[in-house]
């Protein structure tokens, strides 16, 4: 970055009038945009994690329910286990114990249900691996080998949930792109209005023999530095705000960890240099265009 922003104004940068408000405007814009970017980033990352979790948890567990007369139960259970072992894409399968089934039923029957004496179906929890299995094929094989087994593969739940999460994540990224674009546009406009307001300064500098690169450089450094400073401020405030957001483990875990986690902490730190880069390019273009425009 040190090529883009000098540690402080060089002597030659004094040729750019301080013009407090345009500079303040640039810093403020960069800051506000950085702040919003941090939020959008946090939202995107959180929804990303959410989508991943939904995709994996919901997709990877299915249930097979075996309803059969008591005497056929064990045979069908073994048949199901055999089928599952030879089905590609399944990581593991496990028959729920009576205790687990009792817990599932407790809200309806109370803790004292004599589950041993009931024609309760057996439940097999199936966990697929990352490739997933062919649910239609599995269903047909089960129908053939264990007629009492019914596959409940959550497909109808999974798809819209995952796509909803993906849509949220995309919304976050679109927001980031929009914010970056507006930042670039605003800094360009601020730089351009500063340059236009300083047409006379440029004229004087040309009169005394300043090269265009010299003039442009001074403006570019000024604006890049100001955008960087503003973005640092905005990022720090935004990150603090995100970190201070109360965590909540509820609402389908939707709000969990709107904050940054682990390696994702790198992202907010990337915002100020990126803002400086955007400002650098925007100002350089604005300066070149303006300098070409002024005779």
């Amino acid at each position, binding site marked *: 970055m040190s090529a883009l922003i000098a540690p402080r104004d060089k002597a030659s940068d004094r*040729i750019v009038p301080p013009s407090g408000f345009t500079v303040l405007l640039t810093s403020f814009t960069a800051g506000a945009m950085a702040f919003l970017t941090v939020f959008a980033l946090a939202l995107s990352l959180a929804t990303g994690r959410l989508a991943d979790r939904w995709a994996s948890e919901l997709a990877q567990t299915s249930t097979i329910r075996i309803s059969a007369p008591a005497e056929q139960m064990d045979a069908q259970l073994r048949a199901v286990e055999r089928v599952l072992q030879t089905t590609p894409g399944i990581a593991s399968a496990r028959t729920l114990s009576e205790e687990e089934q009792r817990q599932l039923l407790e809200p309806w029957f109370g803790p004292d249900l004599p589950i041993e004496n009931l024609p309760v179906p057996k439940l097999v929890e199936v966990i697929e691996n990352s490739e997933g299995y062919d649910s239609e094929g599995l269903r047909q094989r089960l129908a053939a080998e264990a007629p009492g087994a019914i596959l409940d593969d959550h497909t109808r739940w999974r798809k819209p949930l995952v796509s909803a999460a993906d849509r949220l994540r995309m919304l976050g990224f679109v927001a980031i792109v929009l914010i970056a674009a507006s930042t670039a546009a605003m800094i360009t406009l601020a730089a351009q209005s500063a340059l236009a307001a300083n047409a006379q300064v440029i004229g004087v*500098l040309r*009169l005394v023999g300043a*090269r265009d690169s010299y003039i442009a450089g001074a403006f570019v450094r000024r604006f890049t530095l100001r955008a960087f400073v503003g973005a640092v401020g905005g990022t720090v405030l935004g990150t603090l705000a995100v970190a201070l957001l109360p965590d909540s483990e509820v609402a389908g875990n939707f709000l969990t960890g709107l904050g940054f986690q682990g390696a994702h902490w790198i992202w907010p730190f990337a915002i100020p240099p990126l803002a400086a880069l955007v400002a650098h390019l925007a100002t350089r273009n604005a300066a070149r265009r303006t300098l070409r425009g002024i005779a």
Partner: protein
Amino acid sequence: MIELENVAYSYGGGELLSDVSLKLSPGSFHFLTGPSGSGKTTFLRLCYGQLIATAGQVRLFRKDVRELSRDGVAGIRQRIGVVHQDCQFLDHMSVTENIALPLMVSGRGGGGAAENLVDLIGWVGLTPRANALPAELSGGERQRAALARAVIMSPDILLADEPTGNIDWDMSLRLLKLLIELNRMGKTVLIATHDLNLIRAAKSEVAARVLRISNRRLQLAGSDL
């Protein structure tokens, strides 16, 4: 140094200057006169490459202006001192900084330059106002500062546009002496002015030629001046 060959110029309407030819040799001293709006300022602008002739050829230091890049023009401007008619300064910098601007822009700020700067500010009588901002100067003080800025690089050519328009007679004579001194050091001087007294005063000291723009042509004025 400056050569014009059959130069014409128009701002878009009719031609303002037609078929102007001139060769300013090193060490010459010229005045340029003509009624208001006749094109004196325009002529000077052609001479330092701010305007490009619409016809004919302008050569500065043997280079055709049309073929110079922007940076080439910048390089040439460092060798030509210009006093603009409406003196232009950077409003946020002090008088001293403004006068030193050509040094700064060309990266020659150090050493002897600083001493030279102080001398020069004294010479144009701005020592008590050295730290003022341009907006805090009187009209005459601004013109003197502009002249100081034009000569700080000790350029080969000095072009001055009405350098004494806002200056009283005594001070005008002092500035004229500075210009004559520079001319004696071998610099080429061209002054646009409507002040005939100034021209008369100069003629008694130096072999000045007087050019006059009239009817879009550049003429050598008669000896009546």
